[in-house]
């Protein structure tokens, strides 16, 4: 049976077949999503296309063409028809950037960082504090804001704050790194975890003596950058495809989608270039054997700090984008669970593997906000029907309505982490270097 499938795969992976298959998925996926904007299955079909593109032997030019067609034309159009998909893709992009950053720290340099969400929070709160009315409310009690407060900065400053987010997060990374880098492996994990909690507790409590973060209520409204004219024009051009004139909110969603796409693009380029650079090889050396790395003349502290700073900067940039996209930040967004979520993405995809990490981020995000939700809806549908569970003869009606998969993300994260560690520690799409070095079987021992 197994050989049958592998033969089939080999046959399908030669000649022009891969292109045909990729196009088939693209076309079928697009049409079915266009006709059934709510169907999860249709959406998954469409999302299989990039996976096929990655794995099958297709001419690079064709790959790029299909990929761009999907990302730039098809997804925005479908996204405006059902705004939820754009949200899903946006979150995928945000978490891919976070996972790429964390991958530098854990996957490349081998430093386990459990407080990664702190850097994300720093970027988000930087724009939240300066891009909202918060600076004018520093001396007022949280909740009792005067209505006539002014926005502190013009919305156009947002562009600067993306870069400021990068800088601030990198700085925080270095500040965290300086004291804790003397600490090894598992201690480092706990200290970074503590750091993440410190940032969250600060965000929660810095509403006095100066009202910087507005405490648990969070900051809102946060300004969005003014739309560039190009995006507006693009939105109008889409009218015939979408079926109605896109509203400003929809255009904003498309805009943030493209912004996230650009940042992801930059992140991928930076991460790839770093991996093969002098610094990247130094990180690998440190990860494999610190003592040997020092003996080879690698400046240990400098390289570790560089890893922390580079990893953090990705999160900082995405933080600023996230704050503007939501127009709201609160400490709850930056809980420990998010750090572990991003860790799960990196582990699932493959430590140190850039395509793997993006795949992991997309898969976990999709699971989180769509598959589990759909499963919950499906269960609640079953509960209202008269059906019974076959073998044990238990009526669905009596199933407790506490059994709601969408609420149990931690359970899913935990399971993924344990199972991956036991059965496939190098991830679903392992890093090329690790494969060359060890092969999966050896590492699993």
């Amino acid at each position, binding site marked *: 049976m197994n050989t049958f499938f592998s033969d089939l795969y080999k046959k399908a992976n030669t000649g022009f077949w891969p292109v045909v298959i990729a196009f088939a998925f693209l076309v079928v996926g697009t049409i079915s999503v266009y006709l059934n904007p709510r169907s999860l299955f249709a959406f998954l079909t469409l999302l299989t296309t990039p996976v096929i593109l990655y794995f099958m032997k297709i001419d690079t030019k064709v790959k790029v063409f299909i990929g761009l067609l999907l990302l730039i034309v098809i997804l925005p159009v479908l996204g405006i028809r059902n705004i939820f998909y754009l949200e899903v893709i946006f979150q995928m992009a945000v978490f891919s950037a976070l996972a790429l950053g964390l991958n530098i720290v854990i996957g490349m340099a081998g430093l386990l960082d459990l407080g990664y969400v702190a850097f994300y929070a720093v970027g988000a709160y930087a724009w939240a504090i300066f891009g909202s009315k918060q600076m004018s409310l520093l001396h007022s009690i949280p909740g009792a804001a005067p209505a006539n407060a002014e926005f502190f900065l013009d919305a156009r400053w947002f562009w600067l704050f993306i870069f400021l987010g990068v800088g601030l997060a990198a700085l925080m990374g270095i500040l965290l790194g300086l004291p804790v880098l003397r600490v090894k492996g598992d*201690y480092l994990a*706990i200290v970074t975890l503590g750091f993440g909690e410190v940032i969250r507790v600060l965000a*929660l409590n810095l509403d006095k003596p100066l009202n910087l973060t507005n405490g648990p209520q969070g900051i809102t409204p946060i300004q969005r950058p003014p739309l560039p004219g190009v995006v507006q024009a693009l939105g109008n051009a889409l009218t015939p495809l979408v079926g109605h004139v896109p509203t400003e909110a929809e255009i904003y969603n498309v805009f943030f989608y493209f912004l996230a796409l650009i940042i992801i693009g930059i992140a991928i380029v930076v991460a790839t270039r770093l991996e093969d650079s002098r610094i990247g090889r130094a990180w690998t050396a440190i990860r494999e054997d610190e003592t040997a790395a020092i003996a080879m003349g690698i400046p240990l502290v400098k390289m570790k700090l560089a890893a922390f700073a580079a990893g953090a900067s990705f999160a900082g940039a995405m933080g600023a984008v996230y704050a503007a996209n939501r127009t709201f930040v609160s400490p709850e967004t930056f809980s420990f669970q998010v750090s572990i979520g991003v860790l799960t993405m990196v582990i699932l995809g493959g430590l140190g593997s850039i395509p793997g990490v993006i795949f992991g981020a997309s898969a976990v995000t999709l699971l989180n906000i769509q598959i589990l939700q759909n499963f919950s809806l499906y269960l609640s549908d079953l509960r209202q029907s008269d059906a019974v569970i076959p073998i044990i003869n238990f009526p669905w009606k009596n199933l407790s309505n*506490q059994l709601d998969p969408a609420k149990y993300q931690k359970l899913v*994260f935990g399971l993924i*982490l344990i199972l991956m*560690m036991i059965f496939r520690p190098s991830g679903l799409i392992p890093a090329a270097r690790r494969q060359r070095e060890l092969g999966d079987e050896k590492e699993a*021992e």
Partner: protein
Amino acid sequence: MKQIAANPVYKFLLFPVGQIILFALGASVILSLVTVLLAYLFKSNFIDFDLVERIMLILPQVIINGLTIGFVYSTIALGYTMVYGVLEFINFSHSEIFMVGGIVGIQLMAYFEHTGALATMNEYLVIALAIVLALIVSGSLAVIVERTAYKPLRGAPKLVPLISAIGMSFFLQDLVRLILSLTTGEFNVILPKFGTYDEFWKLAVPGMEDPLRIQIKSALIVGIAILMLVILNFLVNGTKVGKAIRAVAQDRPSASLMGINVNQIISITFLIGGALGGAAGVLFALKATKLDPFSGFFPGLKAFTSAVLGGIGNLTGALLGGLVLGLLESFAASYLGIFTNGAFGAEYKDIFAFAILIVVLIFRPSGLLGQTVGQKA
């Protein structure tokens, strides 16, 4: 002298109890002196009230609170430190094992309340039964966790079992939540009211106007914790199994060559550590009166901090570290607000522990009591 040291009553009862009392008193006295000294230094900054007087007024209560929570931390920290001593890895899911113990204990009391037995039973018997149940459940859970999630990963790079442990911690949190919501419809468990242990003993202290008020609960927690610490000390230092545990912690391959079944000893370590954690969970539940599946996280982290503070892998260190951390936290929670005039208050006590952890790791990574078995590799 040698004869006294060899006397079992001295070795397994008087010495450890004396050590505990010494640690508790020493840490309280030193911290109080430092605080009062600070109060004298900053006295001139506060015009509308006498800083020293205000601090002295609540000092006894602060110390009692600190010692109570400190003993709970010590009991949890022993679980971390034992596992670290044997396997050199942070058992991240220990905080959940602790939480399970607390929840199981409360559920037992709630069951007694439901059947109506709670009103007629002796309250101390109820607490003892809850602790015994928590010991059993948490101990077995710890062994199951070790067998399923850690044992297959023995010998893997260091980060691998740690990540698995983090996953296990998350998994257990939501699993307990799922079980509680499926069976009871909600996942907060509340300690039923019974008995008189919530009341206060009033001790008249010569030289003070108000009598010193000690909650019976606090005395109970401290007493039970000391009892368990003494038993643990006997287990580790006085029995053959304890000897085997120490041998495995010191050198696993050699211990294995000497005919010690290493896997079994590791499981027993988890059993003892988990059981202690479960009992600590019941004690914590008595103090907190309300638990949910996520309430193990912070006490767990603080207990880990205590273990590091005392010197991880070192049992006495974990005890001292827990006491010091509990006291520090209690002092910070009560006095930070007074010293900073309300700008920073008790809400920062959670991150206070992390600050201590970072400072300890930078300046004295081997902890207060030094010489660890950790960081061998």
